[in-house]
């Protein structure tokens, strides 16, 4: 059985479980949302996140999806009709808008699905338009983010987003013309890694072309980078992320969003994790990789994109973590990371283990040895983590 078939069968296994027994389960609510503090381009502000309960990612539905991804299990078993979806969104939007206004600060609206916002089979074009139109009308909305696989970011789809957007970093946008950014799953700039470790089904050429199209359409690009996808050793992952920084900075993307791989249900990553053949990345590695990436970008005199990173399950066994047994160790690193993202100041990533909670010095030694071992062996000493 090849990896793709394995991934498909793992998915099928989760899907076949009775609904009530699926941990987490799919939300019966067609649209979920929340408001939080966040970093905007030029300043700190609020963010409003919407999760649309669409049928899910076409790549996952048809080809088994990416190897670390389990979002498809969050998609409802019977997806809402487009009209239902739009109504649900609009009613949530009313509530959220109230919240945004009461906070009175500039806001970034993030509209996520478990797939691609721009995929017309997932969300019909007219529904996309209606959703964007509603959001755009609010003056406090400075930025809008949607996500899509690169193949759906066609000129036609982008034209629906673009022409409306302001320019990143240009200060206060004109009311009604927020800066629109499309999040593209680039994952890495190395085709071999993207193909073999992520199974993205996208080549670098396509990424380049899509970024070009986005710029032509006046739409910003937020590139998602996967940190340590399955099948990549710790040291190779550090190297991979740092290189990707340079390649994407050269391409001129606006934002880099780093996603340390966490272990999703029903994914190949989980299958490997269960067999002690995959360990989510270390925080120390993440810091080193980001620092290395920024250093390399600066060395080459490129413009550094905004760097975001909000890991899922930080400090948990299934998410980015160091030594789980050290009390507050991961929490300290997690908050350093948050500060870095909010202030965009890489010095927050220079961690001195002796300033961390007790036990982290030894943990840092373990990490150094783990990276050295993965360099030497070409793979991790997995259950050593």
């Amino acid at each position, binding site marked *: 059985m090849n*990896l793709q078939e394995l991934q498909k069968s793992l998915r099928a296994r989760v899907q076949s479980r009775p609904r009530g027994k699926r941990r987490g389960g799919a939300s019966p609510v067609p649209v979920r949302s929340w408001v939080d503090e966040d970093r905007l381009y030029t300043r700190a502000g609020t963010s409003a996140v919407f999760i649309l309960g669409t049928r899910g990612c076409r790549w996952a539905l048809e080809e088994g999806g990416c190897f670390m991804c389990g979002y498809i299990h969050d998609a409802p078993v019977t997806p809402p009709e487009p009209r239902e979806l739009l109504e649900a969104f609009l009613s949530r939007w009313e509530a959220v808008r109230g919240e945004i206004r009461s906070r009175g600060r500039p806001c970034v609206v993030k509209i996520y699905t478990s797939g691609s916002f721009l995929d017309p089979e997932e969300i019909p074009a007219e529904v996309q338009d209606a959703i964007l139109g509603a959001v755009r009308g609010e003056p406090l909305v400075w930025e809008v983010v949607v996500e899509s696989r690169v193949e759906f970011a066609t000129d036609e789809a982008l034209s629906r987003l673009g022409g409306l957007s302001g320019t990143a970093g240009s200060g206060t946008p004109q009311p009604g013309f927020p800066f629109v950014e499309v999040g593209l799953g680039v994952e890495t700039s190395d085709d071999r890694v993207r193909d*073999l470790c992520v199974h993205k089904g996208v080549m670098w050429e396509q990424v380049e072309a899509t970024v070009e199209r986005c710029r032509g359409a006046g739409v910003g690009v937020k590139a998602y980078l996967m940190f340590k996808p399955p099948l990549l050793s710790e040291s190779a992952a550090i190297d991979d992320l740092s290189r990707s920084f340079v390649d994407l900075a050269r391409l001129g993307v606006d934002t880099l969003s780093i996603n340390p791989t966490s272990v999703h249900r029903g994914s190949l990553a989980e299958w490997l994790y269960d067999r002690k053949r995959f360990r989510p990345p270390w925080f120390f590695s993440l810091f080193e990789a980001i620092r290395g990436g920024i250093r390399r970008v600066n060395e080459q005199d490129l413009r550094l994109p905004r760097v975001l990173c909000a890991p899922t399950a930080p400090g948990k066994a299934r998410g980015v973590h160091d030594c789980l047994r050290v009390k507050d160790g991961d929490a300290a690193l997690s908050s350093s990371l948050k500060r870095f993202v909010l202030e965009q100041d890489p010095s927050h990533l220079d961690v001195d283990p002796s300033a961390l909670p007790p036990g982290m010095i030894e943990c840092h030694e373990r990490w150094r040895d783990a990276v050295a071992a993965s*360099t*030497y062996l070409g793979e991790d000493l997995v259950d050593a983590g």
Partner: protein
Amino acid sequence: METVARKHFRTVKYSGAARLGRFEATAPVKTPTLLVTWFPGVRGLLGTENPGDPPVLTEGGTTGANYLGTVPELLPRAVHGDSATTSRSGDFVYFSSPVEEKKWLEGRDEIGGQVHLLHARPVPFVAVTPESYRESLRALRAAVGEIHSEFQLGGSPGTVPWFPFPVAEYPEFWEAHLEYYGSHLDEFGGIQLVGARTGQLPFRKLLALFESIRARCRANTPLLLSGPVYPHEYPTFTYLGVDIFDSTGVLAGTDRGLYLTPAGVIPAGGLPFLPCSCPICLEKKVKQRGGERHAFSRAELLAHNFHVALRKLDRVRLEVDRGTFRSFLEAEAHWDPQFSALLRWADAHNQSSFQPLFPRAGARRVLAIGPESYHRPDFEYYRGRVLETFSPPPHAALLLLLPCSAKKPYSHSNSHRRFEGVVKRRLRSSRSLVQELVLTSPLGCVPRQLENIYPANAYDIPVTGEWDPEEVEITGWMLARLLGKIPPGVPVLAHLDGGYRQAAELSSTLSGRDIQFTGCEGPESSSDNLQLLGEALSEVNLDAPDRVPPNAPGTLLSRFTTVVDYQFGAGAGRALLGNGAKFQLRGRKRWIEERLPKGKPRRLATIVDGSDFIVPSLAGASRLVGHTRLTVKFDGDSLSGSTLFVQGILEANPEIHVGDHVLILAGSGVQVIGVGRAVVPGYQMARGGEGPAVKIMSKVKAGGSGGRK
């Protein structure tokens, strides 16, 4: 590409598939040994950043640096990419990336002496799925090929690249990788196996892996195992052919919080007792108050674990050196079901590749304690070889089956002296017509003529008198097949009881031959039972011969003809001794010579001390030509020096075991130009490469046409 001989590794000794080697590093290192990989934790222990620097020692403490810094086995050391600045010869280097590796290679002229290069893994894929594994191997080969052609590494004596072989549980891709190795043999100085370990690889695959490697690699090719292998696993991997372990296992164990011991691993959290006397553990014991449990810091645990790994390798080397490795391994196999399974499986299915690695003349004393011993390759070889080469002399008129004795050779034991006494009294001059066969477990049957060769003169077993069904079967089957070689008219008398009797009865059933039992009960050498033996012998009507035939079973000629047949092949004994031989067996030097019509007698062979195995003289060897397969063909017509190297061998018989005495033939014909002892198995001799193959014991003097004829 010109090949320059490299001489960094040679095999010193085999002990049942495990080998002792000599690795030429900064200082010569005896293998199996530990390669201390230059991980940050090790740097921390040694208190130094550069592997070339001496460790930082502090006054009077038992710090990791103090302890590890004084351990000579730490050489050779490996260095990590960023600090690969060592100028010491004989070290290993490895790099964090192919870029680093290239950078180093570009400047390598500045580095004197010999440096072993472990190729950086250019491929980021962890080989956990068939696709990622295949891609990893493919890309690795491409990268290695590119680096080798760019830097002309093939055959370079200064920089010796090792063949990288990441191992994953998909044997379908091993072959292609090894094929690459097979077609670039000259380029590599050794093989680095990465990731092979028990637990990950089921034992069958693990065996298959080492089988394929052995089938392709040359003699004197060192094998490095990189992977989380713990000290208690060292014996098993040594048996499979590993020469160098690296410290990955020590590191992995430490990070998993394991207290390594020679016999297995124990979680290190709060141990009440410490079964170790390394400086770290001693200090803890001295400082222990009351029943306090011991806690280890990471550095302490790492130092202790290094200690265990190093001491375990000392033990492994010692056992190989003493020739007792296999018995040691059988005991060690009990630490993990996987090891026992591997051993049993290898004995059941991989005899042909293991047997040539077992010297036919093994240790003086071999412990065969349990079922793991039943099918050890040297025992299996013995049984097969006896069945192949032994047949009773034509004058044998009675087959007498006797039980074995603890004392070896049997005839020196009290019980066998008594048996001999009875036979002598009852049969008088016809006693030399009796072919005696000793039944035993687990060897099977030992013809009296072969009682003083390995393993019959060396094995030692726990004797309870109870035989398990497998023992009965092994001996019963072997006896049945030997009975088939006894002419139908020759009576078979068995003075046996208990398990021996069961085995004999089984063989009677299997072969359809009648066996007459003396009816003894209890100890066969008790006076009552000896009485029974005497009576039974009297009842057998043996015609007393006028004079003892020269080749009767009880004669020296028969004894040594049988031994030479066993050693060199059926018919060899007759070829060597058929013209009449005189045996000089007294004193320290023992030999066989031939009386010539005039002049001094001619030496045919010397008898190796402690057993009946012979070493043919040049004259003797000439007689064996055409009657033995233990020959190697030398690329030339005369020998010089004391060692025949692999490079000089045109042809070698694959049946040659390590330690065998072989005939060295001139390349141009069938003329014997020397006699020597094989130090590597025959099947690896003719594959090219470097290093010694045969120790020359005697040779035709250069210029002479026939030597001492």
